[in-house]
């Protein structure tokens, strides 16, 4: 089997010691060990693994646990029309399945390949196997599974691959693959305005009267747009850790700037002068501003908290505010609403 890795492989770990972070929709995060997973009923499937992008396929024998059994056993729930995101331990790669795809009995969390324990190079100790979709959906080195209400849009789709990960009909015919009933993943959301030719950029000065809305929104769009803004005030030293944690939680875009701030403690006092006005009334802080889908808010808040909690009970770890957003536009493509995020 050829090995195609997009990102550096994470450090090897045996299945027994593998922690798998799972989080149902609006449920607290819990950790399941690889040992608990291996205790579930094991199944063997002989199916093709198809990489449509490299025009390559091979029939292999996987052994592992049905993904549906795994979801059931650890009560990882999502909305009836929701999604599951499966994250790789490298902290970057993730892909998503609709509920209907995820519950298909052919979807496995595999830990053995052709009778051998799954090697590190092939995604060991645990990888996802989705035989009816393109190979990129079969996430290697599974480290986390989360439920989402809206499709968080996996990494390959971000990189411009097929919208749903579906195989070409030739592949389906060659291996006699049937698609699961129900909903596939969402095609990438493109707003009505983005499919229209973008307005010509006037060569002369832009007059106020020229710049009338090309797609006047109906008043119902407000509050239904499903976007939230997050302002997080954190320690500047946690800037990079926060970036990495957000990335692992699927939040790639952000804006950040340095600010000065303080909490109820009114800044810092020296031990020699514990009373009176603080010697350092404002401390340098970093502000992160995020624009994300509502369904991503719990994951983003948790990522920021996890990256920033020093755990010593000391003040100054920061605050996170969640704010309403009534409209969003990506300037380069004119996409509006959730598509702009």
């Amino acid at each position: 089997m050829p090995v195609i890795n997009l990102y550096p492989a994470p450090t090897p770990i045996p299945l027994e010691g593998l922690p798998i972070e799972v989080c149902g929709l609006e449920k607290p995060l819990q950790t399941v060990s690889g040992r608990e997973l291996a205790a579930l009923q094991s199944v063997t499937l002989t199916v093709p693994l198809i990489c449509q992008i490299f025009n390559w396929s091979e029939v292999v024998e996987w052994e592992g646990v049905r993904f549906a059994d795994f979801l059931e056993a650890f009560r990882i729930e999502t909305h009836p029309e929701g999604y599951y995101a499966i994250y790789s331990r490298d902290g970057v790669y993730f892909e998503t399945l609709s509920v209907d795809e995820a519950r298909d009995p052919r979807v496995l969390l595999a830990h053995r390949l052709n009778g051998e324990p799954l090697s590190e190079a092939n995604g060991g100790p645990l990888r996802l196997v989705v035989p009816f979709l393109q190979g990129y959906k079969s996430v290697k080195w599974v480290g986390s599974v989360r439920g989402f209400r809206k499709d968080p849009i996996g990494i390959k789709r971000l990189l411009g691959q097929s919208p749903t990960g579906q195989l070409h009909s030739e592949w389906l015919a060659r291996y006699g693959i049937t698609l699961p009933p129900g909903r596939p993943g969402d095609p990438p959301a493109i707003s009505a305005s983005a499919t229209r030719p973008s307005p010509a950029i006037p060569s002369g000065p832009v007059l106020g009267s020229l710049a009338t809305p090309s797609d006047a929104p109906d008043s119902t769009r407000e509050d239904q747009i499903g976007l939230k803004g997050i302002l997080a005030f954190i320690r500047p030293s946690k800037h990079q850790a926060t970036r990495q944690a957000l990335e692992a939680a699927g939040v790639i875009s952000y804006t950040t700037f340095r600010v000065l701030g303080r909490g109820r403690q009114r800044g810092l006092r020296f031990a020699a002068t514990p009373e009176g006005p603080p010697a350092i009334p404002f401390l340098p802080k970093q502000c992160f501003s995020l624009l994300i889908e509502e369904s991503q808010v719990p994951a983003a808040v948790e990522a920021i908290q996890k990256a920033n909690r020093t755990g010593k009970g000391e003040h100054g770890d920061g605050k996170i505010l969640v704010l309403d957003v009534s409209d969003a536009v990506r300037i380069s493509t004119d996409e509006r609403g959730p598509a702009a995020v």
Partner: protein
Amino acid sequence: MKMVWAILRPEKISDAIASLEKAGFYAFTRLDVMGRGRQKGIVTGSSRYEEIAKTSLMLVVEDHEADRAVETLKIAVRTGNPGDGKIFVSPLGAVYSIRTKSRES
């Protein structure tokens, strides 16, 4: 009232301000920020830039003017390439003036 936040290319700021002025939006607040979009920054040669310098403009406009402000900004700064930025609109509860000590909306 609505708060309009735009994250723009720093080199496009004067175009943005000129167009806003022509459309009758005179008041704004500018803030230099760093940020990135879904492309995760940019790679040039062997260097990777996780964050790129951006300039942020914040303006507060009447509800019915928000779309016109967004359209004006969008047309003024678009190059069509990744990195053009984003504009987002948030609802405000109230606006107060300090000079007149009054509530404006």
